[in-house]
């Protein structure tokens, strides 16, 4: 992770409820995804950063600013943090027009400057012509963009987005995901985005912090965290489809041979402790390649005879459950499935590159 501009270490205890812990949370520039299942404390951490919740213990520092220091009893109110906040349901002011919403945070500007800034922001987000609409007269996607416009119009130092796509239906979600990434890139404002959807995390995030049971358990660059989960909990949250326990048979030249039932897999030993014997083998469904026959030559070290157990459609993708001596899941596009004439019972070859098999040592 790049140099952190925001560092947070705090605990928020809800009376009679869970304790949410941000431990050495470091946010750099770019887009950081707070990733975790619902109930993992993502939204609470975001609200603490916005200043809408006040943690009982700990500190939050943004650059040279001290936003929270519980020991010193200092707390910077949300109005002074200069943060743009987009909550899950957008919370657009229902009694104000689009222009009224977007201009709400621009009180310090003179009236003409305010109008110009509102117009500029609306144009940038493709919302021109909607100035006089009320929020309830907008589509979900338009509401999302108005909420974003309201947050960015006052040029915040930090942008906080809570599940920006939760209120949208799937087609809109997919379309707007790419759009949002572009917009956030153009803005260049450090952004923290909360999501429980790993595809959103992969598509939008530069960095990711994985939250589990009210605590951040791993953070780093998105590909790093997703391909190298530090423990089983992170692997499960990042939803690596295949997680199987295996035994390391030998380690040589940085490559480990792992027994998974009758199958043998070659994986990078990486930073496995030398004594590790029992491991979790993690394979992401996207990394499994399916072929009709044995290729004459191919770089993947791992060729597995596979039998198709079942096919599950997921939008434009198909999840293929395989038996390779152990259960393996692959993710294919619909056309690819048809090309391979996939159906239950079909015999195939599954290929997985060694670097795409991630080994996590058992921790007992």
């Amino acid at each position, binding site marked *: 992770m790049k140099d952190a501009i925001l560092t947070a270490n705090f605990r928020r205890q809800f009376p009679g409820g869970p304790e949410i812990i941000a431990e050495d949370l470091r946010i750099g520039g770019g887009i950081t995804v707070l990733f975790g299942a619902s109930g993992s404390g993502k939204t609470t951490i975001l609200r603490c950063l916005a200043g809408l919740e006040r943690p009982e213990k700990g500190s939050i520092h943004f650059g040279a600013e001290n936003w929270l220091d519980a020991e010193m009893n200092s707390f910077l*109110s*949300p*109005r002074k943090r200069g*943060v743009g906040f987009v909550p899950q349901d957008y919370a657009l*002011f*229902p009694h104000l027009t689009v222009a009224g919403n977007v201009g709400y*945070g621009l009180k310090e500007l003179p009236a003409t400057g305010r109008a110009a800034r509102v117009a500029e922001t609306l144009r940038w987000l493709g919302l021109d012509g909607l100035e006089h609409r009320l929020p309830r007269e907008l589509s979900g996607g338009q509401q999302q963009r108005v909420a974003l416009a309201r947050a960015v119009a*006052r040029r915040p130092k930090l942008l906080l987005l809570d599940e920006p796509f939760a209120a949208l239906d799937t087609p809109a979600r997919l379309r707007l995901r790419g759009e949002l990434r572009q917009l956030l890139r153009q803005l260049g404002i450090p952004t923290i985005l909360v999501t429980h959807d790993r595809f959103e995390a992969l598509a939008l995030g530069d960095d990711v912090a994985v939250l589990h049971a009210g605590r951040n358990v791993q953070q780093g660059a998105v590909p790093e965290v997703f391909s190298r989960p530090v423990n089983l909990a992170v692997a499960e949250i990042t939803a690596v489809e295949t997680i199987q326990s295996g035994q390391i048979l030998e380690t040589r030249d940085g490559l480990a041979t792992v027994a998974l039932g009758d199958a043998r897999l070659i994986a990078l030993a990486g930073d496995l402790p030398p004594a590790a014997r029992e491991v979790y083998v993690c394979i992401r469904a996207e990394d499994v390649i399916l072929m009709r026959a044995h290729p004459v030559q191919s770089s993947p070290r791992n060729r597995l005879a596979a039998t198709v157990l079942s096919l599950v459609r997921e939008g434009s993708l198909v999840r293929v459950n395989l038996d390779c001596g152990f259960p393996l899941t692959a993710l294919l596009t619909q056309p690819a499935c048809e090309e391979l004439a996939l159906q239950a019972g079909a015999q195939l070859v599954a290929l997985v590159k060694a670097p795409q098999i991630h080994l996590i040592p058992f921790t007992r």
Partner: protein
Amino acid sequence: MSGADWQLVGFSLRMALTSLLLVLPPGLALAWWLARKDWRGKALVETLVTLPLVLPPVVTGLVLLQLFGQRGPVGSWLHQTFGMDVVFTWWAVALALAAMSLPLFVRAARTAFEEVDVKFEQLARTLGAGEWRVFFTITLPLAMRGVLAGTLLAFARALGEFGATIMVAGNIPGRTTTLPVAIYAAVQNGEDAHAWTLAGVSAVIAFAAVFVSEKLQRRPR
């Protein structure tokens, strides 16, 4: 309806409106305080605010008389500082009406504020708004229907007030007599027809106020 009757109706309406001006600032503040904050002794304040609603109005009037009489703590101070006498003047009328309608207004406005989702207020704060701006641009506009309904209820209550008014303001025709007091006096003097006329006027005004109030409270959408 004689000219004196119309004057009486006008005076009663003016007094009810004046009492609203006395009720609104502290009423809004109190309602907001009760809806949004938790503090020690909140239950005590809640009880005190509701008390005039359940006490016999004559008792409220008696308390006001004690407080604002020339030898009462507030009354003597007003007399010495401003040379102002409250009891048995139109000030006493407005004061009695305000004391009796405040509880109704506070209850209605409090409910209206509680129905405003705090997420809008929180978001306004992240956009740099201070507490006053949040109240006047977010909370109050979003609670407006309920607050207006409460205002109308308070107005209707003020128009019908009798017990507290008679205690602190008495019945001085042309100076402190309000519609309900005049109706009582008319019956006492055996002028039943006159009493019925005034009663009819009261009923029409009260009906209109409550009708609009109900309409405001039943939200469309």
